[in-house]
């Protein structure tokens, strides 16, 4: 055990320095990759950044809204920009905040006459949220169907695929509740996911949605 190294070396330091140099370059490249260019440390930041860089096409999903339909049809036939959020009706924590924020958004859409540009969609990931339950929940929250639709996805595989595409991870808790990452997802007129925004500021999210709608007003939906 030596505190200081001795200066006698059989071979020079060159191989070591070269190896360390290569190691540092590989490490920096790996760290760059892991943080998406030193921009994101958390998975959620990474998810939002990835969507901002590249729009995501959603997989096919059969929905109940509350009639049988497909998500693509619901979105495409409409041509409006959509603010989407994932929730479940039994929620007592974050999603209930989301519920009141959507009420706020609905009110703002009416006030600013954005009904022809922006719509709201709440998608439930809970298998227990049958169309009947959702209809009741929607009524309770005062959701106005032309503006704000509540949707459930019947098939487990499609639900999983949709959640995976959005990047929403649902963790069941011991008490029957769920912990999941919450956000406003902005879909463009073609139904592609183009932006993910924080739920802290619903009116800013509405601004973004309105701006997207304005910017693409003269583009005919596919």
């Amino acid at each position, binding site marked *: 055990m030596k*505190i*200081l190294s001795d200066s006698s070396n059989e071979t020079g330091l060159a191989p070591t320095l*070269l190896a*360390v140099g290569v190691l540092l370059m590989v490490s920096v490249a790996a760290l760059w990759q892991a943080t998406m260019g030193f921009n994101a440390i958390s998975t959620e930041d990474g998810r939002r950044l990835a969507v901002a860089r590249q729009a995501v096409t959603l997989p096919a999903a059969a929905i109940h809204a509350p009639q049988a339909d497909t998500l693509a049809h619901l979105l495409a036939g409409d041509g409006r920009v959509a603010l989407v959020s994932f929730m479940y009706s039994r929620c007592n924590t974050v999603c209930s905040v989301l519920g009141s924020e959507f009420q706020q958004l609905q009110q703002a859409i009416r006030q600013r006459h954005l009904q022809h540009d922006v719509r709201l969609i709440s998608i439930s990931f809970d298998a227990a949220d049958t169309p009947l339950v959702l209809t009741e929940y929607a009524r309770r929250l005062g959701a106005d169907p032309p503006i704000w639709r509540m949707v459930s996805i019947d098939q487990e595989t499609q639900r999983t695929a949709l959640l995976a595409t959005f990047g929403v991870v649902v963790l069941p808790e011991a008490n029957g509740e769920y912990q999941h990452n919450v956000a406003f997802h902005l879909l463009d007129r073609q139904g592609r996911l183009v932006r993910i925004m924080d739920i802290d500021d619903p009116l800013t999210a509405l601004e973004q949605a309105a701006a997207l709608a304005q910017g693409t007003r003269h583009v005919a939906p596919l």
Partner: protein
Amino acid sequence: MLRRCEFALVCLLGATLPWRWLEASMLRHMLIQLPLLLAAGWCFGGAAAPYLPRWSGYIAKIDQHGIFGLTALLAVSAYWMIPRALELSLTLPLIALTKYASLLATGAMLAGSLERACGVIQLFYLGNFSSMMAIAGIQYQNLPQRLCNAYFLDDQNQTGMALVLAALAVAAVWLWYWAPIFFTSNKETQHDIPNIQSPVHRHTGA
């Protein structure tokens, strides 16, 4: 050698067989599975070294003063403490493979690197390692948002506390190992105290 191999195998199996249980919690993933992989690498490296003299020679050439292995330790631990990277190892098989490979390889080099590194170099690297873990641990506890979508917030808090404890533990073990030399008189500080890992005295000729 056989005991080392057995221990290495136990560590490796402990890290891989219950992987679902280990990876279900951030605390278990980061502070049980990853250290077990490092330990497994360490023991495999130590067990295999006498049987691979040429390979050991090459490693010794690029790992003068333990610089390469200790830099690898810092790089690998920094990478796997990035929440996004850790979470990607849950879903992408390639990243998971990289996790196992990087930790086993770093562990295999680590014993040799620490042996080759003198006190000052050990202090530099292990000091950085320890403070990096402590800072990450404090951040994990302070941040209100979840860093990994796959893990609960409570889990994140606990992992933060455990990281700080681990940082203190690394520091404590290093000090305990070096305590004999700190408590001998000045005249003896440059003496070569028998390294408990290798039975052969290294004569400095000083």
